[in-house]
């Protein structure tokens, strides 16, 4: 309890005197003294002091004509009823009287408070007054009673159903007063959520009519409820959907951003049913209100931006002309800037690219390190996205390399590597990159540079020197860098076999005999065997053409995206996570989180056939989503989920005998045992290494794949698309043969 906490913060001795004085005041014969005492009691309660001992004295003051005083007493009751359930019974009489008071304010107050006192004894007495107030002549009382039904349901479901309160609420959707309608819908929606089997809120064509009527008249908050209900309403009737859209669209003009987002959601979901022409006009109408959301308060803006991000993933064209709107203001909070940045690269196209680049360059010279890195990354993402702009992007990146700002340079090297993975013909800048070697101290950046050196070893005269310096410090490097170094050295040898014999021998020797990381050793052994099988075979495998990457912009898997679209404006849409991952804590979590992790992994595998070499930052988040700034992940889940995903992936690779699409997730888990028994050496690797290998999605696992190709190739001649499950399977088995 808050009380205990604050008491411990003020370790002063309990002031018996004060409680004593309050009690005296509460029992005073003068009304004004009693009132003051009540005030002081509430003041003490607000400060976090435990004044529950005064319960009986307070209750004595409940029956009063003074509305203020009554409110305070009620407040006190709400706070302490849980700790003194037996005393609550004393309050019942007054409650019942107040529920019949001629003043609607008091009737509503009584019913509202009774509902908040979650004590069985009180609830028993609630039925009668609730029934009456639901039919009260004052709409103010009715709207309060409507919410009270939801409270009642939460405490005592059976009684609530028995009394037919749900039916009463359903009738009240047709109430003459719009606020009563709104609250009835709210209460029903809550009950429906809590217990879907009650079918509390089932929209029919009749209720639909009532809801649409109420929409134009009720308060802003009521509109949000109604719009959300309309959005959740699934119909296949084209006419009905058209009608809903038509009636909802005017709400785009509402001043309340939550109403606007709720309206966008309803239209967006019902648009799926209507003809393409009509939905096009609606999409067009949606753009201006979405843009206006960007000028609301920063917190609201943030939610809006996260949602716009989702909408753009579903409908990439809706804000095509609005790039400028998302330019960052210098005083935008960092969390807003980052979201704007992400939206900017999604909107970026050939027409606005120059503007976009100029802006991104500006951001890359900012001071906030996190933001700067993202801006640099964004330049790389744009380069990969828009082919015609790649050269301009490269030029900007080169400018940035010249700033010599450490983290800018590192990030630039990483994204240039991504650009190399897509386009040919930029080898000319390699010397510039190599000039930055001393700046690089992060594994990701070092790995990227090493990959580049290995990949273009034939064009870099001093490639052996460069790699040589790295090899000297091999043991100090991170796993990710070591793996890269190994591969790059092999490439170097295959490209220039005459001069690099000693280099490769040293490398392989060090990796096999001095490394205690099984991943490194295994990889080195595989290369060793491969090389001893003959340089031609090795060349065909290691130096084979790799498919170009298509995008480095992070996108959600389609089914998750569809789910999140139905959650627009909710926390799920802000976190970009399905509700079950953060609602209900651990009990829900595990299974679903795991399922998502697998789905996401399959998605990554699909998007990036062979993620070459180094880690790909954009996808790190997919796997181990523990990046707080992106979206807080449930603390319990990430590690086990990820590792089981990896296990499943292995299982998938192993168990898929025909070239079928990725198998359903559940088959994966059954293969885990096989996996463990088969790939014994890999899975026994020290636990911390497994996630880290995963984390560098390209680096660990998929470069593992690169390794896996080897085995397959000794029997199958050079497959160009090593992603196909068929190939993988063979590769796997062949590798097993190796052991």
């Amino acid at each position, binding site marked *: 309890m*808050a009380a205990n906490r604050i008491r411990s*913060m003020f370790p002063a001795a309990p002031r018996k005197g004060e409680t004593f004085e309050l009690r005296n005041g509460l029992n005073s014969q003068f009304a004004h003294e009693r009132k003051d005492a009540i005030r002081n009691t*509430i003041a003490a309660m*607000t400060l976090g002091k435990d004044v529950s001992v005064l319960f009986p004295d307070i209750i004595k003051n409940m029956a009063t004509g*003074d509305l203020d005083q009554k*409110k*305070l007493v009620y407040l006190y009751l709400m706070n302490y009823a849980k700790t003194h359930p037996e005393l609550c019974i004393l309050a019942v009489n007054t409650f019942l009287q107040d529920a019949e008071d001629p003043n*609607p*304010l008091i009737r509503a107050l009584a019913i*509202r408070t009774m509902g908040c006192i979650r004590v069985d004894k009180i609830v028993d007495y609630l039925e009668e007054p609730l029934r009456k107030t639901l039919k009260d002549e004052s709409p*103010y009382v009715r709207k309060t009673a409507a*919410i009270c039904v939801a409270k009642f349901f939460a405490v005592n479901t059976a009684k609530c159903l028995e009394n037919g309160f749900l039916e009463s609420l359903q009738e009240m959707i047709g109430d003459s*007063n*719009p*606020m*009563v309608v709104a*609250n009835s819908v*709210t209460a029903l929606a809550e009950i429906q959520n809590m217990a879907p089997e009650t079918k509390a809120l089932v929209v029919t064509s009749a209720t639909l009519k009532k809801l649409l009527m109420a929409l134009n008249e*009720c*308060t*802003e908050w009521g509109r949000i*409820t109604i719009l959300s209900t309309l959005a959740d309403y699934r119909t296949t009737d084209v006419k009905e959907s058209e009608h809903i859209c038509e009636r909802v*669209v*005017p*709400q785009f*003009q*509402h*001043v*309340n*951003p*939550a109403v606007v987002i*709720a309206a966008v959601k309803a239209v967006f979901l019902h648009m799926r049913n209507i003809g393409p022409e009509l939905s096009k006009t609606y999409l067009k109408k949606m753009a*201006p209100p979405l*843009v*206006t959301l960007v000028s609301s*308060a920063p917190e609201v803006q943030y*939610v809006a931006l996260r949602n716009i991000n989702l909408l753009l993933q579903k409908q990439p064209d809706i804000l095509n002309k609005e790039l*400028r*709107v998302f*330019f960052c*203001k210098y005083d935008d909070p*960092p*969390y807003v800037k*980052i979201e704007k940045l992400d939206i900017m690269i999604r909107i970026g196209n050939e027409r606005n690219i120059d*503007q976009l680049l100029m802006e991104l360059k500006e951001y890359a*010279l*900012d*001071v906030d390190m996190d*933001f700067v890195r993202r801006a640099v990354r964004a330049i790389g993402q744009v380069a990969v996205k828009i082919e015609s702009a790649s050269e301009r992007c490269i030029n900007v990146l080169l400018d940035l390399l010249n700033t010599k700002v450490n983290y800018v340079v590192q990030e630039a090297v990483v994204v240039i590597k991504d650009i190399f993975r897509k386009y040919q013909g930029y080898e000319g800048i390699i010397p510039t990159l190599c000039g930055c070697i001393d700046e690089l101290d992060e594994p990701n950046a070092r790995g990227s540079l090493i990959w580049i050196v290995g990949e273009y070893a034939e064009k870099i005269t001093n490639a052996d020197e460069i790699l040589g310096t790295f090899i000297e410090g091999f043991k100090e490097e991170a796993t990710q860098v070591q793996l890269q170094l190994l591969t790059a050295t092999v490439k170097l040898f295959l490209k220039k076999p005459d001069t690099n014999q000693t280099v490769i021998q040293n490398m392989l020797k060090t990796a096999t005999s001095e490394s205690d990381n099984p991943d490194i050793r295994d990889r080195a052994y595989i290369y060793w065997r491969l090389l001893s099988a003959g340089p031609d075979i090795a060349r065909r495998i290691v130096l084979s053409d790799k498919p170009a990457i298509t995008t480095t912009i992070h996108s959600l898997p389609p089914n998750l995206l569809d789910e999140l679209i139905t959650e627009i*404006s*909710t*926390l799920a849409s*802000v976190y970009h996570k399905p*509700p079950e991952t*953060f*609602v209900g*804590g651990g009990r829900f979590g595990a299974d679903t989180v795991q399922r998502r992790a697998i789905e996401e992994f399959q998605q990554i595998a699909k998007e990036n056939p062979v993620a070459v070499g180094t880690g790909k930052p954009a996808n790190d988040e997919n796997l181990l989503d523990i990046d*707080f*700034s992106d979206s807080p992940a*449930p603390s319990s889940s990430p590690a086990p989920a990820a590792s089981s995903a990896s296990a499943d992936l292995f299982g998938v690779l192993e168990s898929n005998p025909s070239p079928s699409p990725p198998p359903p997730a559940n088959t994966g888990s059954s293969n885990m045992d096989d996996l463990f028994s088969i790939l014994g050496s890999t899975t026994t690797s020290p636990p911390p290494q497994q996630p880290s290998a995963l984390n560098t999605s390209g680096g660990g696992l998929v470069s593992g794949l690169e390794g896996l190709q080897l085995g397959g190739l000794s029997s199958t001649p050079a497959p160009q698309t090593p992603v196909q499950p068929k190939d993988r399977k063979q590769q796997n088995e062949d590798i097993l043969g190796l052991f």
Partner: protein
Amino acid sequence: MASALFFLDLKGKTLLARNYRGDIPMSAVEKFPVLLLDAEEESSAVPPCFTHEGVNYLYIRHNNLYLLALTKTNSNATEILLFLHRLVEVLTEYFKELEEESIRDNFVVIYELLDEMMDFGYPQTTEVKILQEYITQESHKIQARPPIAVTNAVSWRSEGIRYRKNEVFLDVIESLNLLVNSNGTVLRSEILGAVKMKCYLSGMPELRLGLNDKVMFESTGRTSRGKSIEMEDVKFHQCVRLSRFENDRTISFIPPDGEFELMSYRLNTQVKPLIWVEADVQSHSGSRIEFMLKAKAQFKRRSTANNVEIIVPVPDDASSPRFRTNIGSVQYVPEKAAIVWKIKQFAGGKEFLMRADLALPSVKEAEPDRKKRPIQVKFEIPYFTTSGIQVRYLKIIEPKLQYPSLPWVRYITQSGDITIRLPEAS
């Protein structure tokens, strides 16, 4: 839907709280400052909502306070954050200033308001004018009743309002947002307009406002005399009948009493900067920095900009400033690390110059401040709108009372967020 609301000080200590649903341990709030701190260490971008152990934290900051809402379900985040902002507005209206002090002093009223504004975590009445009718800081001499307006379809206006003289004041206020690059290109320009009303009318008047709205002219086939404007997006006060606007672009409404913002609109048209500022920065061998500014008023001669302020950021450690200008006054404001050039009246078409010279310390900071703050420009131009929006008519009909009434209209253009990126020192 919020389970509980908290007012916290910046250390995270609870000043006042209201538990609406009792489904979250109130002690969850103790984690808030810790979580916030952890998140700040992780990244500079701490979002306004996050989740921890099944509890979702949504918060805004106001003055030296956090307003925090907790929920354990997948609630509507926009609604909750917006409600927190609305709560700030309402309380500010009640206490002038919302801060630690005013919360302590007014806890009784705050509890009452919290009870009235939200029930079981669902926002109820948030209209401050209506709330003020039945929740007051003085004791209720007469038994208060819920104003009919609370639940009425017209929830923003009470019945039985009487004025001897029936008047309406309309202010059309446009603020100009502008982002200019250091080379002088306008990166982004936007007009945010608002029509504000002061409404002193008796009874339940029906109002209709006519603007030179291009879409309306086109849809009704009328040709306008003079210019018409195309509004990108329009937002209305909840009193405006949205479906009517959607149908035939008529703005019809029963206004709240007193002051309110009837509508706001946005135009994305390219506007040239009304006050154009060119800056040239020269650093002299690192010991002195010199700014040369040219400001030009790019609007018609008959208009005048008032209270022009041009705020130029200077290095944190600059000192001994010297200024020269042919108009207004220049001041060095060290606490903002800026020089402010103030010009009371700036006539259209005129051009002025200012030169500032500041000394820099010989010992440099290890990590130079690379934070690129832009130049900001502030001004106000009366009797003038950038967009050319015009009020064509305001019809006022009160069917029962049928009084004569007087509408007054005023136009004004203001600087909104005008930022000009400062060029690198040469």
